[in-house]
């Protein structure tokens, strides 16, 4: 498919179905999107102690995310400098050193090479091979915000904070509930035969699917509202790198709304100290609480509040999920449960249960979502079907304007609309098409890949 033509179609809200399965477009995604965008790797709470590590990928690049002996977080390419063997083949653990199984080159958990068998006999010592100046490679950029560790393979990319832009206002609602921060469980990991963009789009703004796709979860009495079509009263917002959906809450009082969705008083008290006046205004006076969201390109969030005991009040849960592409038609989903580390134990238990019932590999929402997404991916492969333009114009009155005016007095950054609309899906695919169609790359060459051996400095704190 010709990306320039696709871009024109996407700008009009007309999406050729082949964007969800075309291998050529996926190669462009690899070359121009995933090699230049900030990618989520892990949360600090996964590696609380010196030596703790997890191994995560950016597409085919494997990285060790480790807390070194000085408790500094490092991101190290999981590839021996000698013959390219993985120096760590576990997914998680604790290690002061990583020793290559091939020839025993050994690296400290700072990445520095400290062991090289027969250095003198084989290389003539330091004058023959500069062991003291050799380390595992690190991605050119790493950044941490609200405990979330990111990396970027493009040394010229804007900083993480700059990339997030106005979305960081909404990120607090998910990831900033106390001074000490959040803790995560997981991730659950599973493979779906779906293009990665479908999940990213869905979480960014598809409140329209909830009343039908997820009607079964409403029917079994998991929610306070008897019908899922209350969804249309929520607002859709987009700011900076991402956008999301919200639910309309019943009052204009922050504390009452937080209690309504199940936050206990002590957690609300801590949240009071963490959220700005405008963030509290969004949930209180304006009465909108975040639900699903996506940071472009492939990191999503979800927040909802089901019942986890018969006849009981609801309890909220939060999840982070990464749509990690394997190919044009296959995605690995990594899904974490998130909770304030200061939350009382009963809340952590109930919130975790709420997450498991709704999202993740066994979640009742997610099961039905994935059934849709695998079907879309599969049917879009056809010679005929791939050319068909799917309609993503909801909310556009005509090509020149929007049916609905943005909400006046929205307390957060960016633009928001009440009601159903595909504003965010269009925003996401527009960014996607722009990234793929150019400007091509810093050196102007197609197929450009960011260098790996950049500096190890952290770009943001």
């Amino acid at each position, binding site marked *: 498919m010709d990306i320039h033509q696709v871009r024109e179609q996407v700008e009009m809200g007309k999406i050729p179905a082949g964007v969800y399965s075309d291998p050529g477009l996926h190669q462009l995604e690899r070359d121009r999107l995933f090699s230049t965008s900030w990618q989520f790797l892990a949360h600090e709470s996964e590696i609380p102690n010196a030596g703790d590590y997890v191994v995560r990928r950016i597409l085919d690049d494997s990285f060790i995310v480790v807390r070194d002996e000085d408790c500094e977080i490092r991101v190290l390419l999981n590839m021996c400098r000698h013959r390219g063997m993985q120096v760590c083949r576990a997914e998680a653990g604790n290690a002061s050193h990583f020793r290559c199984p091939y020839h025993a080159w050994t690296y400290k958990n700072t990445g520095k090479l400290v062991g090289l068998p027969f250095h003198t006999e084989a290389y003539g010592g330091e004058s023959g091979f500069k062991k003291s100046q050799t380390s595992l490679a690190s991605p050119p950029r790493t950044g941490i915000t609200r405990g979330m560790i990111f990396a970027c393979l493009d040394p010229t990319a804007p900083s993480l904070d700059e990339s997030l832009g106005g979305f960081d206002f909404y990120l607090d609602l998910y990831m900033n509930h106390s001074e000490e921060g959040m803790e995560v469980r997981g991730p*659950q990991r599973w493979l779906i035969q779906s293009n990665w963009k479908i999940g990213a789009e869905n979480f960014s703004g598809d409140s329209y699917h909830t009343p039908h796709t997820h009607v079964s979860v409403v*029917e079994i009495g998991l929610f306070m509202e008897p019908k899922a079509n209350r969804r249309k009263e929520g607002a859709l917002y987009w700011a900076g790198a991402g956008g999301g959906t919200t639910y309309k809450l019943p009052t204009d009082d922050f504390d009452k709304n937080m209690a309504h969705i199940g936050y206990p008083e002590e957690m609300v008290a801590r949240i009071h100290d963490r959220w700005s006046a405008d963030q509290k205004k969004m949930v209180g006076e304006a009465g909108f609480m975040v639900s699903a969201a996506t940071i472009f390109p492939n990191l999503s969030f979800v927040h909802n509040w089901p019942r986890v005991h018969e006849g009981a009040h609801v309890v909220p849960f939060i999840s982070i999920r990464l749509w990690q592409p394997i190919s044009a038609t296959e995605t690995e989903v990594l899904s974490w449960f998130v909770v304030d580390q200061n939350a009382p134990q009963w809340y952590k238990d109930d919130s975790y249960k709420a997450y498991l019932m709704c999202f993740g590999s066994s979640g009742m929402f997610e099961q039905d979502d994935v059934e849709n997404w695998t079907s879309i991916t599969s049917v879009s492969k056809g010679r005929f079907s791939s050319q068909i333009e799917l309609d993503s114009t909801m909310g556009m009155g005509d090509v020149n304007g929007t049916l609905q005016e943005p909400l006046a007095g929205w307390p957060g950054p960016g633009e928001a609309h009440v009601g159903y609309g595909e504003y965010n899906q269009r925003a996401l695919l527009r960014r996607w098409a722009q990234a793929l169609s150019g400007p091509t790359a810093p050196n102007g060459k197609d197929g450009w890949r960011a260098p790996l051996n950049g500096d190890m400095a952290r770009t943001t704190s």
Partner: protein
Amino acid sequence: MNEQNLESPDDAALVDATTHYEISCFLSNEAALLDAGHYSSWMSLLTEDIRYRMPISVTVARGDAGAEALGGMAHFDEDYYSLDKRVARLQGDHAWAEDPRSRTRRFITNQRGFVGSTEDEYIAYSYLLVFRSRLDVRPPEWVSAQRRDVLRKVGTSLRLARRDITIDEAVLRTQNLAIFL
């Protein structure tokens, strides 16, 4: 979860042949109910204090913490309430993930039965291989696992009081767990 719970207890006595046969019949019958989608009948095999767990499988170096890594996350961590809700959903008209239904076949082998901690309970270990085929041309999915069950004698029949599933993949290759293992 304590991983040792999944190993066979060295000092526990094997059940007698009659009980072994009874356990074997229970597991085969349960598999048949699940394969046929008879979820209400399946629920009637569970005790009301059931725990039904399947921790994620994390690849760790030898000697490193296994199941406790990554916060003790699970794919399933259910009680009677949540299993009942899952079943109610599957029996409704709008559970798209299983409509049309997957064709499943649960193969249960390597059964071992041990005397439990109380007189009315048995510990049953079994291996499970599930074949799952959905729709038409897509390749079938396989799920391989071990189960450690606590089976309780209620009246004259057995009920499932606890199930701990050890899944043999770090990354599941089945698109969801809309099926019970």
